[in-house]
């Protein structure tokens, strides 16, 4: 069954930059898909469209047959709740405790009044602590999030996403801010938890070897288009070399675009 489906997604930023051109991707239940490509390829924009954070200029994104763009209010919030997100820069509340950061993932279904006083049900708290223990942060539950290392922070963010009990986990460059040794550990934890929870995952990565190690399928993107979409065994070095050819130039172009924007 298809959990995530993007059909002919085109995205143009208000300044006219065309970030995505007719991207079509389908992800089956239980699949782990890596999206690879040089910077400026449109991976992050695609992540935002998948997550319902941006609305495609044309085309449609459906998660479990629901188009987030068509929802409002409560339905929209609950649809968001079904998708767990992990960001490159963690996006945690630094001054709040690790536990409190994870409990944020339970808010959508918590009592809307009592939760304002940070009162969460026993079940929610137990789930949060259990997830933290499973990502190796059992000792850090009461510590402030900003006292943790980068790798630990990303695990907190992972626990927050998983505490939503999502169907789909999306990660945008989850380890780009970490050094390579830590990065591998965090990616392994993400994939292990995704398997244990029986989730479907789409990971934006820039590191080819990480992608090959953890993904079942790799989607190669370049200049806003899908260049290839193949099982990991069929992704050859030649394809990858082609994907990243002239990356220096592409990166410079992306930088110029950023400066212009």
């Amino acid at each position: 069954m298809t959990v995530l489906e993007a059909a002919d997604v085109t995205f143009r930023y208000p300044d006219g930059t065309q970030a995505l051109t007719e991207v079509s991707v389908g992800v089956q239940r239980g699949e782990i898909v890596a999206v690879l490509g040089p910077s400026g390829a449109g991976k992050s924009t695609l992540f935002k469209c998948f997550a319902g954070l941006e609305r495609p200029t044309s085309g449609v994104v459906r998660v479990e047959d629901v188009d987030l763009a068509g929802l409002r209010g409560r339905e929209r919030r609950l649809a968001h709740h079904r998708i767990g997100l992990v960001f490159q820069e963690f996006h945690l509340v630094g001054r709040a405790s690790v536990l409190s950061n994870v409990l944020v993932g339970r808010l959508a279904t918590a009592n809307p009044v009592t939760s304002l006083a940070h009162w969460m049900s026993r079940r929610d708290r137990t789930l949060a602590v259990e997830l933290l223990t499973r990502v190796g942060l059992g000792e850090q539950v009461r510590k402030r999030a900003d006292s943790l290392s980068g790798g630990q922070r990303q695990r907190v963010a992972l626990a927050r996403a998983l505490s939503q009990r999502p169907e789909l986990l999306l990660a945008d460059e989850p380890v780009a801010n970490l050094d390579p040794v830590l990065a591998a550990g965090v990616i392994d934890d993400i994939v292990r938890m995704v398997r244990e929870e029986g989730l479907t995952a789409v990971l934006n990565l820039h590191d080819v070897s990480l992608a090959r190690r953890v993904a079942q399928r790799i989607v190669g993107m370049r200049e806003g288009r899908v260049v290839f979409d193949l099982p990991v065994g069929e992704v050859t070095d030649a394809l990858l070399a082609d994907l990243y050819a002239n990356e220096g130039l592409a990166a410079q172009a992306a930088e110029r675009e950023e400066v212009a924007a």
Partner: protein
Amino acid sequence: MTATIDKAPDPAPEKTPRQAPTRRDEIERLARLRRPSWGTIAGAVGVVALLGWSSTSTGFSGPALVDGLPHVADFVGRMFPPNLEELPVAIELMFETLGIAITGTVFGVLLAIPLSLLAARNIFPQPWIRDTTRVVVNVFRAIPELMWALLFVSAVGLGAFAGTLAIMVGTAFGVARLFADIFETADMRAWDAAAATGARKSQRIAWVLLPQQLPTMASYTLLVLDGNVRAASLLGLVGAGGIGMELNQQLRLFEYGSVMTIVLVVLVVVMTLDLLSSYVRKRFV
């Protein structure tokens, strides 16, 4: 790197004048004092004119000040020695003053939080909410505490309750503006992430925005408390309780020794509070 690329194909002699500042007269031209522009001159004349107008309209005069100096010395002289019999009264009233300031600040800040949320663009992006709140806040913020005190004295009668209400309302509008600005500079990434989990706006305020901004808010609140103790010391002038009432009375009785005692008590308390709050603020942020 760009410079080398630019130069490489064309090392022609006409490029050299660009390095002209090496020439003596060019250096001297650049080093010469420049005549100020007409705009600068007009601005300077304007400032002098404004100062002239404002000082004549207030009867500001150097000789009068110099002539008055002996009177100042006389006034201060009569304040010594301070009347220690006044001390217990002064201390008791100082506690009342502190009570007015603290109660007023706490309730004022509690009122300010919802106002400031409504006035923060990143929390309520709808322009009509933000603009309406900002206009209301700015209008009421312009009313000095003494005016509020007069209003509340006529509403609830003489005494500390009127003073507390005056401090509370003054703080609410003043702090609302401060907090709104604090919220608008908040890092919204965790906020957006919480929104993407499906959390409501009220929940995001309680779980993301306030925890992030609490230290800054607390630090400003201490600063405001400082100011409110000063303000509360003066509220007695209009009968709104606190030490100011006693100060006013002793001044009218020409009991300068007692006045001195009162002034010293206020001084000690304000300075202690100042030290305390700057210490706490350093620890907080």
